[in-house]
């Protein structure tokens, strides 16, 4: 009974690109948060009940602050309401939630840190904390609005792909890997399912250890409602069927253990 939904304070808010917003919040959750975890963000609007699971982009443990970078998903949405909040406003959250990326697996290895679309933000804190042999960050964007680019450049070798070719390599993150002739012993990835599916196939083909962060609509966010499951290769010990809970058992999974 140590946990509760808390009202945190918005410290700052800025727009990074079309529909992409960045918010710093003051919360005790920063103390225990790890890269790859998420927080459940709630609106203050009683007609929108469910939490929006938003990945953690940066952690400032000393200041007790978290950064989230999120996409506004449309008009009259919860994320639109978040984007209108200002410094000093109260935001209800539960978190940190989920397992996070296994950092220790990267020691001495050449790593790919791959993010696509709104899967780019959680890669930043990973890049800041990961201790590995060679840190290759590959970020995939729609267009030349390459948000978080400067922060990535400070934390590793950055390679960029864009769908429209307006910056970096035209195509997706794997096109950038091929174009620049990059190699890895371990992969961490977050992004849309088609991208993760392609990365999983690439990792299997090259026999690379690969961790992917999955996304799904959630209701409880803490593992009770079974709303956000993914299919697993083996029977899961908790569910007793071939399903794991993305919120509780994930969101980060070894790519070979999940069917996507």
């Amino acid at each position, binding site marked *: 009974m140590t946990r509760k939904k808390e009202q945190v304070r918005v410290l700052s808010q800025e727009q990074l690109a079309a529909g992409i917003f960045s918010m710093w919040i003051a919360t005790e959750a920063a103390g225990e948060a790890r890269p790859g975890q998420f927080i459940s963000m709630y609106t203050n609007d009683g007609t929108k009940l469910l*939490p929006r699971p938003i990945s953690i982009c940066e952690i400032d443990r000393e200041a007790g602050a978290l950064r989230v970078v999120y996409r506004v998903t449309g008009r009259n949405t919860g994320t639109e309401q978040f984007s209108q909040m200002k410094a000093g406003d109260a935001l209800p959250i539960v978190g940190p939630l989920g397992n996070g990326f296994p950092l220790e697996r990267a020691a001495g290895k050449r790593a790919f840190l791959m993010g696509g679309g709104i899967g780019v933000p959680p890669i930043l804190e990973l890049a800041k904390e990961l201790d590995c042999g060679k840190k290759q960050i590959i970020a995939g964007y729609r267009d030349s609005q390459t948000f978080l680019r400067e922060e990535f450049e400070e934390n590793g070798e950055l390679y960029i792909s864009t769908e429209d070719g307006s910056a970096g390599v035209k195509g997706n993150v794997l096109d950038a890997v091929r174009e620049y002739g990059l190699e890895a012993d371990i992969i961490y990835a977050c992004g849309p399912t088609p991208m993760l599916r392609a990365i999983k196939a690439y990792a299997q083909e090259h026999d690379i250890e690969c961790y992917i962060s999955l996304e799904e*609509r959630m209701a409880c966010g803490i*593992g009770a409602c079974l709303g956000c499951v993914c299919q697993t290769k083996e029977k899961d010990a908790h569910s007793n069927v071939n*399903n794991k809970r993305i919120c509780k058992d994930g969101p980060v999974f070894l790519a070979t253990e999940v069917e996507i």
Partner: protein
Amino acid sequence: MDMRVKIAGVEWKNPVTVASGTFGSGEEFSEFVDLNRLGAVTTKGVANVPWPGNPTPRVAEVYGGMMNAIGLQNPGIELFCKRDIPYLQQFDTKIIVNVCGHAPEEYLAVVERLQEEPVDMLEINISCPNVNAGFLAFGQDARHVEELTGQIKRIAEQPVIMKLTPNVTDITEIAKAAEAGGADAISLINTLTGMKIDIHRRTFALANKTGGVSGPAVHPIAVRMVYQAAQAVQIPIIGMGGIATAEDAIEMLLAGASAVSVGTANFHNPTAALDVVDGIAEYMRQYGVKDVRELIGGVR
């Protein structure tokens, strides 16, 4: 001030439980909620064998509520008895096991397996709208409800609560059928069947196409149905449907429920059920209500 209620001979310390499917078997929520403070914990539905449930997306948000089509994913009764029941036994609360099935023999297998288990009550889910086996007819057909209730009552060692669907023309007919079959109590309402369409992807928001609507938006419908059922049967009613606050719970008690379940609100606020317990106590102090049972059916 006395908050105890007695449902089919089982005494709860207060009239508040959680709605099946919103609370697992309590373990995940125990980080947020002292389970000892709940009148009862109602578990997620369990079947005779493990069920994988429906494809995702399984949940969607709607105005003032949500929709779900989980499809009763559950680990099966054997693992449940080995893991979930011992977990709940650590707490000073009543254990209500929700039982699901596709056909009478599947329900009966679970009820039989639970005969010797330390559980306090059984809640029989004859009303899930999200499982495709044509069995929905059970909860929507009075004759089937009476027959299945009778079959279960013949072998059950614990009091039996039949959980009713609101997706019927006349709730009193179904409530009476459960009573005629020997049910010790009824609970209502389960979710209302709905549909949401994702206009950006031009497809259904839920992979199952339809799902059960719950949350504050359905509360007035639930109050109406609990009231109607209370006028029609003598057995106690556990009222549920959109209860998010103590005020919602008190409405339900006044409409004729002997106890209430907090469901979807747990997703919005993990401590919602405790807030309801505390809020009922505050209301009782405010209005000088000495015994919570004074509220039950207080509106006629």
